[in-house]
């Protein structure tokens, strides 16, 4: 048995733009224990309910994370709508679904890029982010923002997308498909890339369930779980089926996300065909009185929103539980027994979003 050494990893380090700190306990080159410590990015924004009105809270919750900002805006609006008993028009639900799936495409491309960067394939990283810019252009065209949109509001959405632009969205995405395919084939077929991912960081199905993994981490371990199955938004009309892989290693998780990329394009194409005409919002009057729980499938997994009001313009409580928070126990499990050199890849493989985790 070798000597035990503790190596601190983070908070400022080159793999992730975000600060997370891990104490890695090593025996020679093998990680035997991991102690995560967080708090570098905690803002305490749930407490802002005391200072911001419920309509303003949507913008605060949206800024939990700049990557899944649309989903957070949707979650906040929809949980408040639920507590107020507001029915959102069908067209607004479709628009939300389209933007949400666009977020998933941009998020997964971003993640693929970071993964490539993680195993030192710099040009692949650049290509992923190059393609991602096309998706951001669509966002900019339809919402005005690249990463923070503020387009969701209590009662519906703030902007409509006209028929021509909707068509442009689906055309652009479908035209990108061959390029994305070429890119993702490198992740799935290149021998040196596979060397880094196949069989690395295996999370069994039992562990995934027991540790409460969510999103692509759970689906990569064969767990049949996706909140889009509950048919929120327009998903009930789009015929959704989750992407499942059985192996539970880094390769499986990458594959799940890559298949979801193409699935999101399908979903958007279908939504563009089916979107009904009609209003995009309903007038909102009065204050929140009551409580509501909502679940939403973010690019990183299940997010959970809770809103509670007592008849004033300020909410009593707004609580969000985010996917990365749920996946950290699985990460700790994967890291134990891995090589030190694999740590960056494994940290990346859960697609960590520390801003979400700490809020």
């Amino acid at each position, binding site marked *: 048995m070798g000597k035990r050494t503790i190596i601190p990893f983070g908070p400022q380090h080159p793999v992730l*733009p975000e*600060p997370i700190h891990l104490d890695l306990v090593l025996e020679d080159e093998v990680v035997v224990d991991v102690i995560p410590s967080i708090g570098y*990015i905690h803002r305490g924004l749930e407490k802002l309910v005391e200072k911001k009105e419920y309509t303003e809270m949507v913008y605060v919750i949206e800024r939990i994370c700049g990557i899944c900002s649309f989903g957070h805006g949707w979650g906040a609006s929809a949980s408040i709508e639920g507590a107020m008993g507001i029915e959102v028009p069908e067209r607004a639900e479709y628009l939300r679904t389209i933007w949400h799936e666009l977020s998933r495409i941009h998020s997964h491309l971003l993640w693929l890029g970071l993964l490539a960067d993680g195993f030192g394939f710099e040009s692949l990283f650049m290509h992923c*982010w190059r393609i991602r810019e096309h998706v951001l252009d669509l966002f900019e065209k339809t919402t005005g923002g690249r990463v923070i949109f503020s387009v969701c509001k209590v009662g519906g959405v703030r902007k409509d997308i006209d028929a021509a632009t909707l068509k442009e969205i689906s055309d652009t995405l479908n035209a990108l498909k061959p390029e994305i395919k070429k890119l993702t084939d490198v992740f799935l077929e290149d021998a040196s890339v596979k060397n880094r991912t196949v069989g690395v960081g295996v999370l069994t199905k039992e562990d995934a369930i027991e540790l409460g993994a969510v999103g692509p981490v759970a689906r990569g371990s064969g767990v049949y779980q996706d909140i889009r199955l509950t048919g929120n938004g327009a998903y009930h009309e789009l015929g959704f089926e989750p992407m499942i892989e059985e192996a539970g290693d880094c390769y499986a998780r990458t594959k799940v996300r890559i298949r979801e990329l193409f699935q999101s394009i399908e979903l958007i194409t279908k939504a563009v065909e089916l979107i009904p005409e009609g209003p995009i919002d309903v007038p909102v009057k009065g204050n929140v009185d009551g409580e509501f729980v909502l679940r939403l499938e973010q690019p990183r997994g299940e997010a959970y929103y809770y809103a509670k009001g007592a008849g004033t313009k300020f909410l009593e409580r707004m609580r969000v539980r985010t996917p990365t928070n749920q996946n950290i126990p699985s990460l700790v499990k994967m890291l134990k027994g891995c090589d030190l050199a694999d740590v960056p890849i494994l940290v990346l493989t859960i697609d960590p979003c520390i801003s979400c985790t700490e809020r």
Partner: protein
Amino acid sequence: MSYVTKSPWVIHYDGSSCNGCDIEVLACLTPMYDVERFGIINTGNPKHADIFLVTGSVNEQNKAVVKQIYDQMPEPKVVVAIGICANNGGIFRECYNIMGGVDTVIPVDVYVPGCAARPEAIIDGVVKGLGVLAEKRAAMDNKSAAPAAAEPKAEENTETEGKEEA
């Protein structure tokens, strides 16, 4: 841009931002905006860096980290605060765990507002930072030539630059 005769290396630290500004900083490095063509490289090592890009505001836990990265950077150095969070706390300024902008902990030379700051604005901020860097370098050269006279003037210059941006 005629004065871009040097290629600054940047280091990025994420205070308590929402990620929005972070990914825009990264987007600056990737093909669409591609600042690497000017030789601007994102480094992980504070001792290699000329320009410190900070996104997000500071809190009790990370202020030591921000301070320590700043202290490790060699002189002359420039701090660019990116996004309204880094400028003054932004939407989170009333949160209990936010101390305010980055300038509560380290001196900031260039402020880039926006929520999120656009890549164009970030690049602009870095280019402004190059000007400040050149001034600081000149001030250092003067200082070694004529120790007493040059110092106060140079400091005045950098301060006006910072205020203009705000």
